[in-house]
């Protein structure tokens, strides 16, 4: 394998040779490096956490406890209750009891609770950001600038819907579904809680939320905010734990609606469990989203789009742009520039304000990612890894990409959920569309071209619920999110996101 420098020179120098005596590469050693800039605010974390049921924090019934670690240093952060059928039962009962009163509140008053939640989240934003980074491993700049502001915005947006629901469903009178069982993943722990809770509450439902077993802390702290703002007991209940609590929630007869974000594999199990029960279901599942770069794109910005598409949040993003399709004429340039860009990605301490890529959330996830590296090597793929140094403890993966990938390669088909990109090339728009759509998933897609008519043609043809044109990984509470095909059904956010939390005529 040639060195990085040789490859770049060959790739980028298309028309003329390097200047006399110079190799046209760029060095990003450390002539002037950033000193450590850790977030120093101290966040208190209790030694142990119970479920939040009926407005109070309660201990585990008999499921024992689990530990949650900081994936950046493998240190235990806290212990939390491992929910059982009995805990879920208590939580669902609390939600059932609270639901009629919550739904009967004047809609504006219901809205005020949500506004209060949004405000308190803004006021405690730094604390939540730090806690999220510690529990999840994501860089503080993301939890601070993306996750937590979006959480507050999500409650704020939905607060305003409470008294306007009838306008969202012209001609049909929406009524609450009832009790919602909501199971969320570990990649955006608090944001996913907000995506689930805010629309459910706005529509007059009550909730039982089951956070992921590696990231329970911010959701539990959200329970503190519910207390602070006087949310009626039982309106939101939080039961922590593993798959046992999740299954119990899905199967509980007192649950009217199940909402799940996570893997397609688990989503299918839930769909089977819910079939015939009369429960409503929305699922936001996996993806293998294409990011398509045409030769007339703004290349430097497209490279930024690749970076935010796959390296944002360590690639732990269901809509990550994990399949890159580059038009052949610019493939060399894009790859060379991506290599250069990878050198300036700072990987390490998630609490350092200059960290771009944090820790992988858990050891099992790190092992999953490692497995795909092995498969790719076995399948004969070339890998390019950032030259960064990784910390000696904690769970880490260098930002990487595979080149020479064909549609049949495993890394082009399966969701890896890590900072790992498969690079493919194409020649014509039709080829790009066909290959991009050749996946059971259909969550998101990116398209980069400067030609307006072409971009709308491609956007129209792609089977994906979110299409980012000349941008990637943008999120907003007003913008519906959710997939086509096996990426799930139902939307979260926006007017369309309300649909999963109301009954209209004809719905059960």
């Amino acid at each position, binding site marked *: 394998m040639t060195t990085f420098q040789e490859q770049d020179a060959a790739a980028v120098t298309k028309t003329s040779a390097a200047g006399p005596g110079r190799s046209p590469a760029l060095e990003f050693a450390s002539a002037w490096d950033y000193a450590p800039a850790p977030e120093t605010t101290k966040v208190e974390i209790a030694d142990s956490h119970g479920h939040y049921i009926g407005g109070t924090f309660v201990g585990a019934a008999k499921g024992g406890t689990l530990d949650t670690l900081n994936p950046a240093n493998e240190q235990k952060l806290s212990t939390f209750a491992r929910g059982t059928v009995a805990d879920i039962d208590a939580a669902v009962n609390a939600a059932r009891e609270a639901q009629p009163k919550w739904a009967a509140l004047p809609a504006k008053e219901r809205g005020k609770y949500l506004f209060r939640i949004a405000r308190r989240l803004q006021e405690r934003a730094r604390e939540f950001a730090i806690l999220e980074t510690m529990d999840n491993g994501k860089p503080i700049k993301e939890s601070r600038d993306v996750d937590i502001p979006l959480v507050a915005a999500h409650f704020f947006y939905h607060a305003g819907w409470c008294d306007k629901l009838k306008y969202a469903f012209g001609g049909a009178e929406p009524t609450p579904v009832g009790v919602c069982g909501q199971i969320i993943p570990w990649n955006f722990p608090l944001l996913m809680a907000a995506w689930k809770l805010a629309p459910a509450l706005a529509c007059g439902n009550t909730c039982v939320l089951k956070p992921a077993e590696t990231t329970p802390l911010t959701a539990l702290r959200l329970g503190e905010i519910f207390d602070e703002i006087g949310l009626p007991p039982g309106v939101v209940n939080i039961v922590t734990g593993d798959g046992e609590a999740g299954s119990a929630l899905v199967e509980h007869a007192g649950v009217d609606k199940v909402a799940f974000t996570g893997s397609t594999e688990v989503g299918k199990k839930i*769909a089977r469990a819910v079939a015939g029960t009369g429960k409503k279901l929305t699922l936001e599942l996996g993806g293998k989203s294409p990011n398509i770069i045409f030769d007339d794109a703004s290349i430097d910005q497209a490279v930024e789009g690749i970076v935010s598409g796959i390296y944002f949040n360590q690639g732990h993003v269901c809509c990550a742009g994990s399949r890159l399709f580059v038009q052949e004429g610019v493939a060399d340039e894009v790859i060379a520039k991506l290599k250069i860009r990878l050198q300036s990605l700072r990987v390490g301490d998630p609490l350092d304000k200059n960290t771009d890529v944090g820790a992988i959330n858990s050891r099992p996830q790190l092992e999953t990612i490692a497995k795909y590296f092995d498969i790719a090597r076995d399948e004969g793929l070339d890998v390019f890894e950032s030259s960064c140094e990784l910390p000696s403890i904690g769970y880490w993966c260098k930002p990487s990409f595979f080149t020479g990938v064909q549609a049949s390669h495993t890394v082009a088909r399966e969701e890896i959920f890590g900072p790992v990109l498969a690079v493919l090339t194409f020649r014509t728009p039709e080829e790009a569309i066909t290959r991009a759509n050749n996946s059971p998933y259909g969550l998101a897609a990116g398209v980069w071209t400067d030609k307006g008519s072409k971009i709308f043609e491609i956007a129209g043809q792609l089977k994906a619920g979110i299409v980012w044109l000349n941008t990637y990984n943008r999120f907003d509470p007003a913008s*519906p999110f959710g997939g086509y095909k096996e990426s799930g059904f139902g939307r979260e956010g926006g007017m369309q996101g309300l649909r999963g939390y109301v009954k209209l005529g004809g719905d*059960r």
Partner: protein
Amino acid sequence: MSERLSVLKTYKLFIGGKFPRTESGRSIKVADASGSVVAHTCRSSRKDLRNAVEAAEKAQPGWASANAYLRGQILYRMAEMLEGKRDELAAAISITGKVGKDAALAEMDASVDRLVAFAGWADKYPQILGCHNPVTGPYYNFSVPEPTGVVGVVCPDEPSLLGLVSLVAPVICSGNAVVLLASETNPIPACVLAEVLATCDLPGGVVNILTGLRDELVEHFATHRAIAGVFAAGVSDEHRTALEAGAAENMKRVQVLDLGPDLAAGFADDSAMESPWVIEPFVETKTIWHPVSS
């Protein structure tokens, strides 16, 4: 002189705009109130279903990309043609003797009107179900509904025509293609409708009609991975569960209408059955972002 023997019709399937016989070679007798056989229909097999799905898959992209005005016109043309077969269809509705002549005519008229309603929706529902989203930041962001793909329709036994039309019209008006399983107790109106569809400018394969037994076919509707959604009404709890479990196969969008015990009354309710929210289960919201700058 001996009495003339009537020519008993054996209705065939309607797949890809053609009228093939069932691959199974089996048929089902349809009898009138007195028990005399008045017609034979095909007892479709899973292979017929497979063929129908293939035809639907082939036809769907073109139908979806046809402009909405054209789709609306074709649905209206269907209504016109149906109206022209008013007596024949009314007779088909009442052929088994379960529906009186007046009720059959009323059902016939309601079916025509339902098609007219969805003919009108074709170029309007995106304006109801789609929207512009005021996101923070320099981005233009909008959501549009797009058809889900190939949708399986499992029709109720009664109303045999209105049930079918009510389930099919909202699904195809948005650009989906349909593979439907007709009423098991009276599939004749579906078979007559096929003759309308064959001549009304609807591209072959957009609507495919199977007759047969739910016990044999529901399972395959549920598990066929190229069927992206299922719309049903009047099915047993067991079939409902089977269909909903299909979501576990390929994330099928499954909508089983719950219209209460009186299906005929339920289907006759225009405000519920002609709402855009009947179209909504089989469209996918696509949300598009683009930066705004010069």
